[in-house]
């Protein structure tokens, strides 16, 4: 029987791995991810989860062990955060190059210095080029749902790539809310065991990770490109199937919240989206034609979907909980790239909530009203930092 439990985002991740019957879990603790590892360790110790739990000495080793496990044909899971993810960087690319569908949870946390343990998307987005699929979650239920779905997407024989479930530090990881923990049989019907065509097997020895000469390497990369191109359809397909089985729509590539025929479109990622929906409702009641697109799948970037969604929109206001050094936030930049040559709305990038700075409904409303005002006055600033000490008066009024 499925059961409603009050659990944190961290426990939702752990239950997601358990329900997915992850067979090998190698992880190293880091705030705010520690509870994921603790919970899995205790589930394994109590015999509730049939998995090999490997204690490792670093995140680099956690991903290395996951790679080895996945190479033997085992379903592998790990979790980390911020500096831990950065330490994994080399092996994130190995996992994708080796076409290993390892699923991990990354608890979004700001990179130091200054030292911080709070929510910020920079850690995840800095890994956007590593070949990992990236799914940003809005609430704890979606965290659990996304772990299960990620295995189904990543292990598809046309995809065979690793994936990351992304949840905001503390706002999800340590916040407890009701989550439906599904019946194991239901999950088993949805997610078949992992059974790759090629694996490490002493009876049938094969070589893995060998040299790719210049006349071959590029073609292997093209294969990954082809797989990535297939991911958007696969995400929507698995999302639909998930909805049929579990009666819940996690949002696919982009969750469209009241977006039909809107003049102003707000784009959010992660937990900000949840608070933003309350604000969207308020503004619509006040007569504004505004809607919200929650960017759930950041990798691969849902280019086609944005082209459809932004057709006829006057202003796109993008809330980036990241500043990836260079020029503004990642989501706004990718959206502009996606719609170039197709549509020409005003696109404004709002840098928000870095290092866990709180995003209240009031601040979000001020941002959205600013986006609405651009329809008349035109684009003032391409990139604006919101709620800094130097401009707090404006955004908190």
């Amino acid at each position, binding site marked *: 029987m499925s059961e409603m439990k*009050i659990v944190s985002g961290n426990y939702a991740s752990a239950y997601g791995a358990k329900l997915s019957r992850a067979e090998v879990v190698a992880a190293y603790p880091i705030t705010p991810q520690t509870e994921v590892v603790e919970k899995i360790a205790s589930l394994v110790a109590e015999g509730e989860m049939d998995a090999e739990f490997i204690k490792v000495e670093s995140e680099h080793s956690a991903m290395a062990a996951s790679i080895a496990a996945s190479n033997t044909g085992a379903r592998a899971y790990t979790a980390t955060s911020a500096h831990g993810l950065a330490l994994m960087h080399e092996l994130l690319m190995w996992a994708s190059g080796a076409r290993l569908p390892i699923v991990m949870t990354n608890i979004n946390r700001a990179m130091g210095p200054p030292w911080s343990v709070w929510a910020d998307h920079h850690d995840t987005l800095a890994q956007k080029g590593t070949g990992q699929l990236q799914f940003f979650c809005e609430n704890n239920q979606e965290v659990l749902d996304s772990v299960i779905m990620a295995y189904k997407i990543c292990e598809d024989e046309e995809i065979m790539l690793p994936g990351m479930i992304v949840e905001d530090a503390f706002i999800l990881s340590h916040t*407890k809310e009701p989550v439906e923990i599904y019946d194991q049989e239901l999950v088993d019907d949805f997610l078949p065991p992992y059974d790759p065509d090629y694996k490490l097997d002493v009876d049938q020895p094969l070589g893995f990770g060998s040299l790719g000469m210049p006349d071959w390497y590029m073609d292997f990369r093209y294969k990954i490109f082809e797989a990535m191109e297939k991911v958007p359809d696969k995400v929507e397909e698995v999302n639909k199937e998930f909805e049929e089985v579990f009666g819940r729509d996690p949002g696919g590539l982009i969750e469209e919240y009241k977006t039909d025929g809107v003049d102003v479109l707000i784009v959010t990622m992660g937990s900000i989206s949840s*608070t933003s929906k309350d604000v969207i409702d308020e503004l619509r009641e006040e007569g504004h034609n505004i809607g919200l697109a929650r960017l759930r799948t950041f990798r691969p970037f849902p280019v086609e979907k944005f082209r459809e969604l932004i057709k006829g929109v006057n202003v796109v206001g993008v809330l980036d909980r990241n500043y990836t050094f260079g020029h503004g936030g990642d989501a706004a930049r990718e959206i502009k790239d996606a719609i170039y040559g197709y549509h020409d709305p005003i696109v404004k990038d709002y840098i928000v909530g870095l290092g866990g700075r709180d*995003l*209240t409904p009031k601040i979000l409303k001020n941002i959205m009203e600013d986006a609405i005002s651009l329809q008349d006055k035109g684009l003032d600033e391409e990139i604006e930092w919101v709620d800094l000490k130097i401009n707090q008066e404006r955004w908190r009024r």
Partner: protein
Amino acid sequence: MVLLNMIEIRFHGRGGQGSVIASELLARAAFAEGKDVQSFPMYGVERRGAPVTAFTRVDENVVRDKSKIHTPDIVIVLDMALLDSVDVTEGLKPDGKVILNTGKPPEDIDLGIDNPKYTVDASEIAVKHGLGSKVAPIVNTAILGAVVKATGIVDIDTLVEVIREHAPAKKEENAKAAKEAYEKVRGE
């Protein structure tokens, strides 16, 4: 109790008093009564004795707000010494209630505001039931009993049942502490 709007609750305590567990138990009780809930700590550098803040949201509708609680309906103070260093009533709604852990009657407490105040000696009740020590009593379940009486946010029987199921240790003692504080709270 009929909830028309979301109820936001803020706990002020010290590491070791059980503020975070209290925010969670209250959420569980409201959830058991069919409400949507959210419970979260203000995470900083938690350690025994340091000021801790925890939050609970309760609503008839889905709780979508994931920001911190800035304008609480209910403020709960587990340690009176915090009044010297923390502005516990910051942002409290004009009709918001304050529940304090003290042996003094409410009229003897000056918070500089006119909001309704309730007091209970949760430390004494906790010690009596063997929860923590005299120097460091674990007062979370006792104060919750007082909160339930003062606010009617959930039924006392629901709270007691939730404590019996989810208190990390000494379940029966915690349940008794909550019931005793429910009877002994003073104010309004």
